[in-house]
């Protein structure tokens, strides 16, 4: 652990640097969300447009920064890190995979069958 029983040095500087990074990432996200560059919106990669990929990657980066710097995951033992982050990431990926594939399937059924809903 980063904080044992001995005297602690202050991490204030590091905290403000992380705050700066999180702010800049948020500003970039909002800026992209407002101007929506056509080159990013109109081009797809693996079924999703590039802008959304950028948003999701930046979000995961922010989540990493919050967990590691603010929640002091960087100071915990590897076993705790794996028990907490590993479990969550695995289950969430599994859940997302199942539900999104299924959602897309239902969409295709609505699109290709003779069900009329837009009336």
């Amino acid at each position: 652990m980063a904080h044992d029983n001995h005297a602690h040095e202050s991490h204030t500087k590091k905290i403000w640097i992380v705050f700066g990074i999180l702010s800049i990432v948020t500003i970039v996200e909002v800026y992209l969300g407002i101007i929506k560059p056509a080159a990013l919106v109109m081009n797809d990669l693996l079924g999703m447009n590039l802008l959304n990929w950028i948003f999701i990657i930046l979000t995961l980066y922010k989540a990493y920064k919050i967990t590691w710097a603010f929640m002091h995951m960087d100071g915990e033992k590897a076993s705790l890190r794996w028990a907490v982050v590993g479990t969550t990431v695995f289950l969430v990926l599994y859940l997302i995979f199942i539900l999104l594939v299924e959602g897309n399937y239902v969409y295709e059924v609505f699109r290709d069958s003779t069900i009329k809903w837009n009336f």
Partner: protein
Amino acid sequence: MGATVTTANTTGNTWGGGNEPMGASYGKMMMWFFIVSDALTFSGFLAAYGFSRFKFIDTWPIADEVFTHFPFLHGVDAPMYYVALMTFILIFSSVTMVLAVDAGHQMKQKKVAFYMLLTIVGGLIFVGSQAWEWKNFIKGEFGAVETKGGSILQFIDKDGKRVKLADFAATLHEDRTQHKASNGVWFESEPALPTYSVAEVQAGFKAHPDLLIRTEAIYRGTDAEKKDAKLHPELNKVKHKTVLTRAESEAMLANGALVVEGANLQHNEYGSKLFADFFFFITGFHGFHVFSGVIINIIIFLNVLLGTYEKRRSYEMVEKVGLYWHFVDLVWVFVFTFFYLV
């Protein structure tokens, strides 16, 4: 004190107590595992949101057109600015929280108290902002007509700008009073009536030949869509909602069954009904977490002021609520992305 803060001074004596699996104290480790289970609950909600969104991917509302308000800027189209501000407030309150934890490690009581206070204030501002966001969402702005099939029709002028129902609906003298338990049979009542009836909207639409109807469907610019005579030849843009021609608009409006103003769990003027349901449920559940976080922070803040942790010679409790508070911030980062950006 031994119950709340364990120190690893019994190494070598596995069953002697005071053991710390994974090098974390009991309280901290349990907070981590609570966070894991809570994270899975939120993931379940967000994944269900993703399921419904993928299911109705062609008709899902576009967030920029829904959340456009900013305090004191009435009628100004300001997509996302307000929610970005809310995000900043929550990230900043996370920063003051981690500063409180840092000050706790150095046993500086006054500093811990000060930063805890700032965190509480930040949390309250965030909850207040969310309440304001809900108010705008529930009240709505433009109004729409729901058809018999349950899809939403919105009104635009010839330039593609949204038009409010109030700006064109005719006034017919057909007022009917709301059926309350007090003025009809006592065991039946109905919800508040919308400002306009469907007939009034239809008559107003007929009287304004410039108006057009925008459906929920998102225009993709395919060849079939380009040839479709029902779609407006100029106003349609790729990845925007589809605009109908005037003739088709009139035919569509004839199917109108219900005037919708704002949003509730059954109907909403923004489009897919599930959109409002998930918005209320997920931001509501998150707001509830923020609120309980504020309450827990206040309790810890009072304990700091009373000197409880000073006597204990450890500010680990501040660290534990800090973990919860950062988790709430973490969840908001995802809610922000999936509701407002993507």
